[in-house]
């Protein structure tokens, strides 16, 4: 993984000094609340419902065991002994004190971490596939490019006060595990016919109040032009994006109002002045960064491991865990493993200091001391020998890190909701707990198969409710918590925005509605057909009727006709 050099360290250290002075001036009354707000936001410091919240950046999800231990330590000393992993490679501390944030930043700097640009109207933490570099289906490892972009975007003087937040993702290939199309700017790794790396560029995606998928603005961008092109695109947005209305200031609104073709034309026009300029990535610079992501010292192993195969056949619990939490690896004899942060009764993505330390230990014992954070709020060990999987599983179980639900219905993605967030209209965590309780049978979950359930406590969509197979959105209905049900969303390729299926329901009704939708899917699907394909085939109205239990009549009639 990328190792900081002296310049990276100086920038982070000087940032700590800067923020320490800004905090001091704020606490001394030299900076007003309004003056301090943009400064603290660009350092990931929010004021939340109960307390200030600090959002720590984990660029493209890459984390060393040493860094994770420091995060654990920080949660113990400065918070309540736990943190919350988000959907965009961040760790949020919910209970920090403003006057101690500079100390936290200083501790983070010791392990080459920071919270720079994790909030505010700037280029946010860059994200990438959680399995980058190890996924067998990727075209090329997106991390070196994400790192080059991270450096360029960090404290960029021209783009520190954009119209609105700006999220960027890099995906290694056509699966799009990085969800590039729900980002303001997405780079999808491609190779041209000569094998040269480049990107398909997507722009103007985003969730929130008006969910929109990004549009393709360039079909192939030579990789060396990554930063020149980004500068052109950001400049067009900075100058032409709306600033009169907070809700219309994201890039997606500009792309929609101009049309993707016109927006693309303007970016290209700007790019002609920058192309081949000083930001062009030279082969030497690319090679230098790529060297940081060279493959670790993999052993030469056979594809199959007898002990692993045997354990899988003899231990059902292990087999279930392997089926959901173990992922294919490009190197023979290795696998990537998700350490689940979803346990019934626990907020999705929450991890205690002890859990983080356990995960750090596992990364060292069963890998190269490296972890990833995933978009589904879990941790990943990218390089585990198949022969170690059984031992790893037994160890992970001890720390509650082996919930065998990855990719299944119980692997719920959720924002913190009304329990923590001042923006939320409704709580999410009790609803998640109810759904997980309802679907607690491993056999049932496995039979349902891959299904993504996402829940947000308000329209800002931090829980990505628009892009779950099943999405749940908390709303306020005459002062009561109610929930809209959304179906058919997907954040990876082929991406889709889900549709609201009908009237909202109360918290108590949500598990029943979800159960009916799932039952309908199981009743209607072809063998091995996934949820979105079934939905597309039989239509959303069929699910609508099922969800609200108003279908029996209709279906009985149809059956009669069919049988008659």
């Amino acid at each position, binding site marked *: 993984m990328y190792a900081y050099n002296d310049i990276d360290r100086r*920038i982070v250290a000087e940032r700590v000094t800067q923020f320490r002075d800004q905090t001091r001036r704020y606490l001394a009354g030299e900076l007003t609340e309004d003056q301090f707000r943009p400064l603290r936001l660009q350092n990931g410091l929010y004021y939340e419902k109960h307390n200030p919240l600090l959002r720590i950046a984990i660029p493209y999800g890459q984390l060393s065991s040493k860094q994770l231990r420091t995060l654990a330590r920080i949660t113990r000393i400065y918070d309540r002994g736990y943190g919350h992993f988000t959907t965009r490679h961040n760790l949020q501390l919910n209970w920090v004190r403003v006057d101690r944030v500079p100390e936290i930043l200083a501790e983070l700097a010791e392990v080459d971490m920071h919270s720079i640009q994790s909030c505010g109207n700037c280029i946010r933490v860059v994200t990438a596939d959680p399995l980058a570099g190890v996924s067998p289906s990727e075209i090329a490892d997106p991390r070196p490019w994400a790192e080059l972009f991270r450096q360029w975007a960090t404290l960029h003087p*021209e*783009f520190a006060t954009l119209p609105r937040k700006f999220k960027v993702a890099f995906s290694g290939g056509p699966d799009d595990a990085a969800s590039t199309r729900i980002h303001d700017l997405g780079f999808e790794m491609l190779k041209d016919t000569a094998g040269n790396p480049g990107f398909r560029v997507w722009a103007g995606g985003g969730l929130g109040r008006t969910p929109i998928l990004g549009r393709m603005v360039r079909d192939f961008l030579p990789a060396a032009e990554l930063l020149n092109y980004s500068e052109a695109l950001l400049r067009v947005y900075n100058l032409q994006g709306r600033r009169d209305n907070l809700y219309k200031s994201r890039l997606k609104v500009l792309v929609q109002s101009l049309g993707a073709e016109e927006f693309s034309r303007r970016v290209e026009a700007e790019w002609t002045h920058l192309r081949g300029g000083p930001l062009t990535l030279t082969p030497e610079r690319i090679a230098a960064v790529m060297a940081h992501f060279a493959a670790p010292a993999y052993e030469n192993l056979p594809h199959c491991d007898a002990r692993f195969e045997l354990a899988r056949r003899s231990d059902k619990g292990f087999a279930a865990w392997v089926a959901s939490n173990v992922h294919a690896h490009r190197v023979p004899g290795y696998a990537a493993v998700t350490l689940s942060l979803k346990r019934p009764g626990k907020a999705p993505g929450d991890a205690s200091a002890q859990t983080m330390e356990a995960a750090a230990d596992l990364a060292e014992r069963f890998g190269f001391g490296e972890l990833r954070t995933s978009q589904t709020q879990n941790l990943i060990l990218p390089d585990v020998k198949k022969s170690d999987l059984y031992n790893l599983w037994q160890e992970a179980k001890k720390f509650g890190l082996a919930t065998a639900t990855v990719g299944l219905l119980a692997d719920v993605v959720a924002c913190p909701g009304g329990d923590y967030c001042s923006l939320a209209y409704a709580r999410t965590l009790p609803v998640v707990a109810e759904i997980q309780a309802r679907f607690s049978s491993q056999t049932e979950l496995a039979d349902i198969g891959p299904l993504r359930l996402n829940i947000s406590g308000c329209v800002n969509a931090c829980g990505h409710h628009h892009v779950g197979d099943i999405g749940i959105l908390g709303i306020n209905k005459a002062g009561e918590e109610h929930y809209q049900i959304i179906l058919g969303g997907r954040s990876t390729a082929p991406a889709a925005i889900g549709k609201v299926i009908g009237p909202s329901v109360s918290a108590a009704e949500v598990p029943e509605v979800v159960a009916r939708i799932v039952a309908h899917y199981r009743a209607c699907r072809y063998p091995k057909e996934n949820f979105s394909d079934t939905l597309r085939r039989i239509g959303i109205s069929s699910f609508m009727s099922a969800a609200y239990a108003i279908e029996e009549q209709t279906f009985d009639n149809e059956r009669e006709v069919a049988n008659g």
Partner: protein
Amino acid sequence: MKSKLLIMKERLQMAKLIKRRAVVANDWNILTLAEGTPPAAARLPYGDVLVPLAVWQARKWDLIQRQWNDGGQGNRLGIWLAPTDDPLTLAGDLEDLDVIAVHFPAVGDGRGYSIARMLRSRLGYRGELRAIGAVERDYLHFLERVGFDAFEIEGDESVLDSFDTFSVAYQPTTIPGSWQHEVAA
């Protein structure tokens, strides 16, 4: 016609002027057009003046002549750009201007940063580039790095420390050889 003119003397006029990291006297008048005033009708104040882009475009010849008549003493001339003004329209005018100022209506309005980059990088403007309006010390290092070398700002001399917040940067600077810091390789 006079009544429709407004010469801003209060906040901006009183603000400190920092030029190339040193505090200097600030004798500049900033001409703003009251709503509905045709730019051609604007009456020019005496002394050093920054005029809106529209006034410059309407009365270029008057303004240049005013400097000649003055024999090159005093009466310096500059223009100020609003965030919606297109800096590229100044392509042929750079040598006639002592100062180009860019107005920041609010700290969070970042359009002026891109305007500065275009003036420096695209048009190759080498003269004074001044940030006016909502200019605060915590943004001086960013402003300088996109090419501003003059700033109208309130506060004591300690604001000058802000230029040295960062000793290195990941991005190349706009003006080679002048106000740049070391650049990360």
